[in-house]
């Protein structure tokens, strides 16, 4: 079990992490969600022992890891841009971890072949890594981080540059992989769909602080701060009185609605449209409307709140 307590990390002059708390139990998958620059990658690097810690502790099963160098932590980290060894072929990249842990070449390569099969790259063992496509490189990096059987697996944007179909498939595969193993997993992403699909728990990080740490449904249904709500795509507004988070489908066009505004733009969304309504105070609201009732841009509209759709937020 990983326990991170009051972790602060400075990168040069900026405070990348400010008092972050995080626990990950064995067998649990925690997704760290946040925009770029929120400190997600720094958190993983600090846990791995790659960034010096300014304050706080990183502990495993209660034992402080300060002073334990990276290579003795037995954590796995899959880097965002893979960081494959450019001079080694696919098999040697995956076998690198087991070899570093003292496995014989034969055993290490056998394990590497197994994992390459798991990620669907059987047959590419002898290819140079730079000749692989982005998706293939990503899967080599994944296989490589799994190969030494780390007690904690950390994945930095594991589905970053993939096309949608491959992404969806890998999300399913990863989920299956996580479910099979009694291993703690931390996954970093900027995509809440991905976080909700993969995480047992979601930790939302912003400006180096944890804004929310909860199960996916809770995060979606009850964002803890205005930032979380906004990041998930909710409208954050005081147009209806108190500070509320309102998902776009929590608003309806209603001539009798209390809030008036003008349609500033509209976007086609498969089975519906999303329109953008500018209010008198120059703030804007995103509203979901059925495809057959889309107002023209520039039209004057009135908006109402669906019952129970507004989520109260703490005043900042």
């Amino acid at each position: 079990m990983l326990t991170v307590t009051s972790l602060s990390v400075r990168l040069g002059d900026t405070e990348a992490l400010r008092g972050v708390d995080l626990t990950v139990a064995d067998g649990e998958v925690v997704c760290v969600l946040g925009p770029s620059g929120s400190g997600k990658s720094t958190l993983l690097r600090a846990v791995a022992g790659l960034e010096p810690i300014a304050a706080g502790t990183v502990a495993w099963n209660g034992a402080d890891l300060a002073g334990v160098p990276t290579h003795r932590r037995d954590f796995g980290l899959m880097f965002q841009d893979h960081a494959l060894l450019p001079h080694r072929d696919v098999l040697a990249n995956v076998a690198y971890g087991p070899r570093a842990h003292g496995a014989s070449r034969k055993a290490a390569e056998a394990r590497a072949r197994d994992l390459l099969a798991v990620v669907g790259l059987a047959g590419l063992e002898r290819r140079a890594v730079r000749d692989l496509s982005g998706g293939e490189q990503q899967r080599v990096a994944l296989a490589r981080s799994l190969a030494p059987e780390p007690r904690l697996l950390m994945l930095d944007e594991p589905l970053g540059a993939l096309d949608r179909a491959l992404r969806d498939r890998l999300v399913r595969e990863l989920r299956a992989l996580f479910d099979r193993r009694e291993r703690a997993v931390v996954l970093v992403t900027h995509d809440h769909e991905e976080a909700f699909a993969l995480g047992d728990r979601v930790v939302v990080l912003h400006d180096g602080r944890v804004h929310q740490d909860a199960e996916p449904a809770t995060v979606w249904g009850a964002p803890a701060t205005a930032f979380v709500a906004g990041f998930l795509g909710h409208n954050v507004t005081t147009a209806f009185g108190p500070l509320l988070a309102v998902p776009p489908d929590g608003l309806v066009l209603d001539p009798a609605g209390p809030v008036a505004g003008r349609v500033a733009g509209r976007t086609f969304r498969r089975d519906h449209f999303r329109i953008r309504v500018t209010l008198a105070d120059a703030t804007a609201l995103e509203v979901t409307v059925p495809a057959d009732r889309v107002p023209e841009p520039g039209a004057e509209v009135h908006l109402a709140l669906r019952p129970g759709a507004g989520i109260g937020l703490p005043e900042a």
Partner: protein
Amino acid sequence: MPRSSFRPVATAVVALAVAVLAVSAATPSVGAATRPADRTVTLLTHDSFAVSDDVLAAFTAKTGITVEVLRAGDAGQALNQAILTKDRPVADAIYGVDRAFLGRAVGDDLLTRYRPAALTTVPAAYTAGTRGLLTPIDVADVCINVDEAWFAEHHRRAPTTLAALTRPANRDLLVVEDPSTSSPGLAFLLTTVAAFGDQGWQRYWKDLRANGVKVVDGWEQAYYEEFSGGGQGGERPLVVSYASSPAAAVVYADPPIDSSPIGTMTRTCFRDVEYAGVLRNAEHPREAERLVDFMLSEPFQADLPLQMFVYPVREGTPLPEVFTENADVPTDPYSLPAGEIERNRDDWIREWTGIVLR
């Protein structure tokens, strides 16, 4: 306690560096052999030093002393190296100090007194100015050489005096060496000082310059490339070289020739002497003395002419036939006192540079 395997790498690098320094410090240096049984002597000299293998081997066989020859550029360079390193000399003996630098060599606490027994066989004139610190070994006359064939071909009469060289008839015929980079060049400058006096030589060089004298850096370039008798397409029939050059021309002729096409203007000569001496802080002073003895011995003296094209100082040393047949020994060469040279040499060279080159 976690330990890093970086440490062995760093340790290995340091160990290697230390080992290199340690081994090198333990390696005996030239002329610093520590075992008494290993009798070597190191001779610091100029690049032109040469001796026959068998002559040198005989010395080693007779004395048990091995000679290491350390060549350090031209004569001036070798001497300056000796002066710079005089506290811990790189060698035991030095050979090749000439008249031009005699004053510098004896004035700098560089040498230790030594008088070989065979010095009695050397004319007293050659020991002038040595203060017992240096032993004359050989004599070389720096003279203007004449390509006789060129003058015959052009139906002209070769000049015989210094004064003739400034006449229009001999325009663009002479090539000389820069005295700041060449020993014979410096010797020829001394010739003109001796001939025209402290106040007159400048005028003479102005005239030479006006008459188209060509200046080059070194003797090889002057003789082989510029001199028409040098065999490499040179165009000037007069060159500052040595009285022995006519003999050398026969020795090196290919195909062989009977008599030399080169003559010497025997009234333009400066008599240079080359000296050897024992360095003051030498590690092997006894061996160095044996080496100086050897250089005055008959075998070495007789070997000199054909090895370095200089004349032995030892009276009665037989000369090779090619010398007696082809080379004229000037009867009354110019000379200057060593002290006067030492006091004025650098100023003369600077003055010369201003007159002739700038």
